[in-house]
């Protein structure tokens, strides 16, 4: 993490470093995403120390975690479709294992299996899409693909290929209609793993999606064959709406967070959906990246709070959180910060990043996307504040005893909260990197 931050700040990615004949590209965007992955991984690893206490196979857990993180980093740096696919699998396969880590727990195993099955199907779709693209372009390097897809004679084949590739990304980012695995997996998995998958894995999906869609299929070159921006717009609207609406009716906090995570994927999709060619593309794409950065902290923190609650044996529904603030005020302040920041209130970085996203969308002429996003945000405040209300206002339930305070889990939650808050004023520091990196990818 330190290395990637240092690289990012010192500007190693400018101009991009290409390795292995362009198979790997280390540029500003890759480094930016690697900062997200490594931060989330560090937080999750820190939190897992207490969560996994007295469990077997701890070594395997950390190895899987690091393998997945490696895969994600590769995804962010992938310079060809083949590397992208392999990296995606490298990130996914350990994730399946992690979700099913609690081998004695039916829910965990079942979730892992479902995740794996849906993942296998999606990988198949993705691979098929890649092969169709290859058939049209004759290359797997994304730069070369961009050259040859311009005014291709096979628009139908290319179009199907692009949409299928998009489907592969939709799986990784838990976007509709490839989101079905997400609620189950997040709920069944150990909470730190949920945090890891919902934050880092989603960001990895977007890292690959941003690079492939913008570099390999520049919209002005392929619009005759497939207007993928329109497809992403549809996906974004459906994803946001479905995620938020479903989250609003959940009784289970973890499941609510899972759906809200789907909703946030919809917000970030705006970053791609607003690349209409009008307006400042770098701004909106950078805004998507920034949102993922902030999301990496606030969402990880929220799931880690759940991990904390699970550690204490508090139940999983909203009602079980009643009055928790009296016993663990510090952690509950942190959770409140996460919730309000997720909803986009100006207590954390979530406010600014969402603002950038919507402003970018308006700037690009797709104001209706911003409008849908804003309506969804308003709805999300409803279910996020339910958690806050339960924690602070409701009378505590009987029989729950918060006896011990796991230090590393606590440290991880508090760190995430502090970073979330600090990102509100400090986002200007990162936004410059993000906007530059996004602009460099686009042009």
């Amino acid at each position, binding site marked *: 993490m330190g290395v990637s931050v240092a690289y990012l700040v010192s500007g190693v990615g400018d101009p991009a470093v290409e390795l292995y004949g362009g198979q790997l590209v280390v540029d500003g965007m890759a480094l930016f995403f690697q900062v997200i992955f490594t931060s989330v991984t560090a937080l999750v690893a820190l939190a897992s120390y207490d969560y996994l206490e007295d469990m077997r196979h701890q070594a395997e857990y950390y190895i899987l975690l690091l393998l997945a993180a490696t895969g994600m980093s590769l995804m962010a740096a992938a310079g060809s479709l083949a590397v992208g696919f392999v990296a995606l699998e490298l990130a996914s396969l350990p994730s399946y294992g992690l979700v099913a880590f609690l081998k004695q727990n039916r829910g965990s195993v079942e979730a892992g299996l479902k995740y794996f099955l849906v993942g296998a199907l*999606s990988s198949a779709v993705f691979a098929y899409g890649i092969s169709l693209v290859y058939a049209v372009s004759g290359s797997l390097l994304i730069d070369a693909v961009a050259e040859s897809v311009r005014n291709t004679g096979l628009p139908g084949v290319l179009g199907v290929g692009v949409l299928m590739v998009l489907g592969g990304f939709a799986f990784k980012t838990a976007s509709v*209609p490839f989101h079905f695995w997400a609620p189950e997996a997040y709920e069944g998995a150990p909470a730190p793993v949920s945090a890891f998958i919902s934050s880092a894995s989603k960001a990895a999906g977007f890292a690959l999606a941003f690079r492939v869609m913008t570099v390999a299929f520049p919209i002005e070159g392929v619009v005759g064959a497939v207007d993928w921006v329109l497809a992403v717009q549809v996906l974004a609207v459906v994803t946001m709406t479905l995620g938020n609406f479903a989250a609003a009716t959940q009784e289970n906090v973890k499941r609510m967070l899972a759906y809200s995570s789907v909703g946030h994927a919809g917000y970030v999709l705006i970053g791609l959906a607003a690349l209409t060619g009008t307006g400042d593309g770098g701004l909106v794409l950078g805004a998507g990246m920034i949102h993922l950065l902030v999301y990496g902290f606030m969402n990880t923190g929220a799931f880690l709070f759940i991990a904390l609650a699970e550690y204490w044996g508090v139940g999983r529904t909203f009602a079980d959180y009643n009055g928790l603030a009296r016993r663990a005020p510090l952690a509950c302040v942190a959770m409140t910060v996460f919730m309000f920041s997720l909803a986009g209130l100006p207590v954390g970085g979530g406010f600014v990043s969402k603002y950038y996203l919507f402003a970018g969308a308006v700037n690009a002429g797709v104001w209706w996307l911003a409008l849908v996003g804003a309506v969804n945000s308003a709805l999300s405040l409803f279910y996020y504040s339910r958690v806050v209300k339960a924690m602070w206002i409701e009378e505590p339930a009987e029989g729950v005893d918060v006896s011990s305070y796991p230090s590393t889990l606590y440290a991880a939650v508090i760190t995430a909260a502090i970073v979330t808050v600090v990102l509100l004023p400090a986002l200007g520091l990162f936004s410059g990197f993000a906007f530059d990196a996004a602009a460099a990818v686009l042009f």
Partner: protein
Amino acid sequence: MYTVATGHAYQSTLYTWVGGEAVPYELTFGILLDQLSTLMLVIVSLISFLVHVFSLGYMNDEDEGGLARYYAELGLFSASMLGFVFADNLLMAFMFFELVGLCSYLLIGFWFREAGPPSAAKKAFLVTRFGDYFFLIGVVAVFATFGTAAFGGPGVEESFPHLAELALDGEASVNTFGFAPSTWFTIVGLLVLGGVMGKSAQFPFHTWLPDAMEGPTPVSALIHAATMVAAGVYLVARMYGFYALSPTALGVIAFVGGFTALFAATMGVVKREIKQVLAYSTISQYGYIMLALGGGGYVAGVFHLTTHAVFKALLFLGAGSVIIAMHHNENMWDMGGLKDEMPVTYYAFLSGSLALAGIVPFSGFWSKDEVLFETLIHGLGDSPLLLGAYAMGLLAVFFTGFYTFRMVLLTFHGEPRSDTARDPHGVRWNVKVPLVVLGTLAAVVGVINLTPVHTLVPAVPEFLHDWLFHGPEGLNGEHYEELLHDFAGYTKGYPLGETLTMLASAAVSLGLALAGAGLAVALYRGPEPVEHTDKLGALKTVLFNNYYQDEFQVWLAEGLTARVAGAADTVDVSGIDGVVNFVSSLSLFTGDRLRRVQTGIVSNYAALLTLGLTILLVAFGVMQGWFL
């Protein structure tokens, strides 16, 4: 102070909190020290210091509770006022203006456990807030028009008064929203004036000030002499270069000032409580300052601001001393005969009263005389409308003399009319020292600007006049006079020649003041004065009820505003809430449906996933014509 005294000024931007390339306006904090602000700083810090000393006697020796809170609020109050005076732009001034308002709210409501103070504090807050609302719009308008709200000063390239001046000359273009520049500048000026009138308690926003007497007396001295109320007129003087461009705005200022001076003075005539009389006299005196500024007498206005700060602080502290002695009974009809019991207070108070009434040679005479003289000569020039304002101001002199001496006589002369007055509570050094200092100053501070004497004997200097005329470029009295002449069309007229006109004016105002004082002496002299107010008949009732201004404002708030608010509430509850509730129930319903899609059976997921992808593919296929 030294830098400024040698004819320089200092301006520095300390902190830019919104700025940069992408932002059209820079919002900054900075300080501007020129002749005007340094003079004001001296006044504010002097009065504030004396009030702190006096508070030791008024609060500590009386064993009041909440002293820590009291001094914290007092300190914050002084700090906000100093920040306001330091401000180098309108927005910063506005922010400190609001802080001053907040502190006055806190201090007026200091004894919050009693019934009166909290309500008075709320009233002060709401009424001034109403004025500040216009001020805020004015600030935004200034930004939108000029892109800067700087007052000017050395090193400031673009200040809004200067830009406005250029725009009127056609040398610069600013966004005037479709109005002619002069019309628009008048509108902006009047908007800012709303805040000024609220803070300086000018008609019709004066109603809060008498009620504000519920606060501790040192606070009244601070608020009514040096700080909050002065903030309003100081702002006019601060941006005088802007107001000088608009004859209409100046006319409004002059008329509001003249009318307030007369109006408040008549109400002060019948009051029973010593602090109430002082409150109305404050309103009236600030009316004079506004009259001076509106009438083109920049120096006169600032001069009166200075002398008034001194003698009104003195009077309030004197009243505070009397109130200590009277065990917090403020009714003048219970006093009497205090002259012999508390000589220090008496002589200091008398000095302040003579200044207030405008009796030669006390400070108030010089400043009030100059206020009236300036208005008169400009009125005799090409602005005959000012003569109306002048007439009101002149008439108010008579009432001022009357109520001042009525107050002095009732409080200190005659036989004691109650037991506490026979055996008053003693006061200590910390009460006496501020009184002595201010009493001396009230007598002699007029020396800083002996304009009439200067005209007769040029060897006698006019310190204040020279001081204000040598400010930085664009911020000095000389520049303002040119602006007044060029843009507002103010010229001076001397029907009797300069010297004679001046002497005539001074003689008339002094004569009226003496007449008022004489009438008071005639009516309330003797050991057992009686109430003469009944002779006024119905007029007394009207005056006693402050012309029913409070009732009118309450009607405005309850009868009118509350009904409009009620109607808005109905629309909100039935219309908007209905829509919102519908949306939320719709979302919950949809959410519930969506939840059922998640069956938990993985083959369903796979099917749905494939179906979704297929729909997407088919839709795009048809749309883009892949299958043709």
